[in-house]
């Protein structure tokens, strides 16, 4: 499900399936997208931050268009204990690879992978990012 911001409209709550993963997309070319994500985070229940949230930073292939400061994004990842992924939507190969990663993460968050919980996977991702 794609939304431009949170909270989601309450009228459709009863029709909505369970949400297993929230990927917040931040376009590095748009400061506005970062602000939007920051505002939307306030509407997310704390339980999601146990491995069911990730930040997806797009537009990284075009560093010369960068309007968002990287430190702010890293900080967001740290504060909300969630992994930060990077991708470039303009390149098909990366788009596909990123989609596959997200799908994998989603399978884990939905509990379809035995032995791996969303929380353990989330902390694994964060620790590898710090190295």
């Amino acid at each position, binding site marked *: 499900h794609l939304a431009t911001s949170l909270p989601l409209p309450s009228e459709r709550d009863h029709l909505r399936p369970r949400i297993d993963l929230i990927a917040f997309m931040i376009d590095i070319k*748009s400061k506005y997208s970062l602000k939007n994500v920051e505002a939307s985070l306030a509407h997310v229940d704390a339980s999601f931050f146990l491995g069911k949230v990730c930040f997806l930073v797009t537009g*990284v292939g075009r560093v010369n*268009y960068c309007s968002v400061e990287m*430190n702010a994004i890293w900080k967001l990842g740290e504060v909300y204990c969630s992994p930060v992924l990077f991708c470039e939507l303009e390149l098909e190969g990366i788009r596909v690879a990123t989609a596959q990663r997200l799908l994998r993460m989603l399978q884990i968050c939905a509990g379809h992978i035995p032995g791996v919980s969303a929380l353990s996977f989330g902390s694994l991702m964060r620790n590898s990012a710090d190295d």
Partner: protein
Amino acid sequence: ARRGAAPGLAPAMESADGAVRTLPSIGRLSRGPTFGRAHGRFGLSPSGRLLPPAPRSQENADPQRTAFLLRKQWTLYSVTPLYRFSDARLRDYARLLSAFIAAEKQKGLAVEVGVELDIKVSVSSLPDLKGSDQDQAAILVQLSSRSAASSKNSEEKLIWSGWFCCVSGDDLSENVPEDFTCLPLFLANGGESYTSIVGSWFQKTFDCCFRRLAISPLNLSWMAAMWTGCKVDKTASAMELVFSVPCLPQPLNISYAIHPEDAKALWDTVQKTPGEITQEEVDVFMDCLYSHFHRHFKIHLSATKLVKVSTAIASAHCDGIIKFLQSQYLTGVLMLLTELAISQIQ
């Protein structure tokens, strides 16, 4: 909302080698973080940055000598260190470059159609343009034309200028081996074909590499904030920010002009420590300008791309074009640009 938590320097400092290329190879990007944490470079938005020194009294420097650099549009390039360059051999270089240009013309890479022009090359040093004593003095290359038909009394017309410089480039010069000279910033004014010929000669002769230096919107906002804070003697011109709106069928640019005194007043309320600027202060400054604009026009400038910044000090365009407007801040601006160039090289 004024100040949030101050952004701290992240503990792990990796070098961000991926940061300066556009559309890097597929394999690298899909793996995860390609940007290292900021390691204090202007180009990678450090959390704190010292302001360029206030107008140096420049006792020995004569502003007249560098006045010709002002009010001209310079295209920026980053240059990797030059191998076995010597500032004692400038005349030789001028001769060699002159011969090279003549040879290129013979080959049919004629740069000027029609009149046969005799190109005279001069290579000189600009000792005033450096930041610290460790910096290499700037090197100026000028191409003048003289009509071949007349004698040497005929007028010489300056057709192209380019200069290499390094202002406070210690980060780079400290880390290069002996035989290398660090002049990471190159500025060119004049025909693109001449820039190409001169660049080729330098690349061949000193085994260096030129690359266009682009300025990201993030860096442009730093410049906007830093330059707004500078004191100017005479009445300053308006501060102008130009934004390009993405994702439209027709390109649309938004120009936002701010009265220089208002801009300075705003900056003065934001900046806490004189002589130092933080990323946070730049963000607050820009956010104030953006929200003011939004209140009036209901447009989120933060969703557009900042492409040009003009102040009384200088104007900078994201394609890597700069214009210096005040000689007293010339070295200050060069210091920022040098850092950007070094960022691109490393």
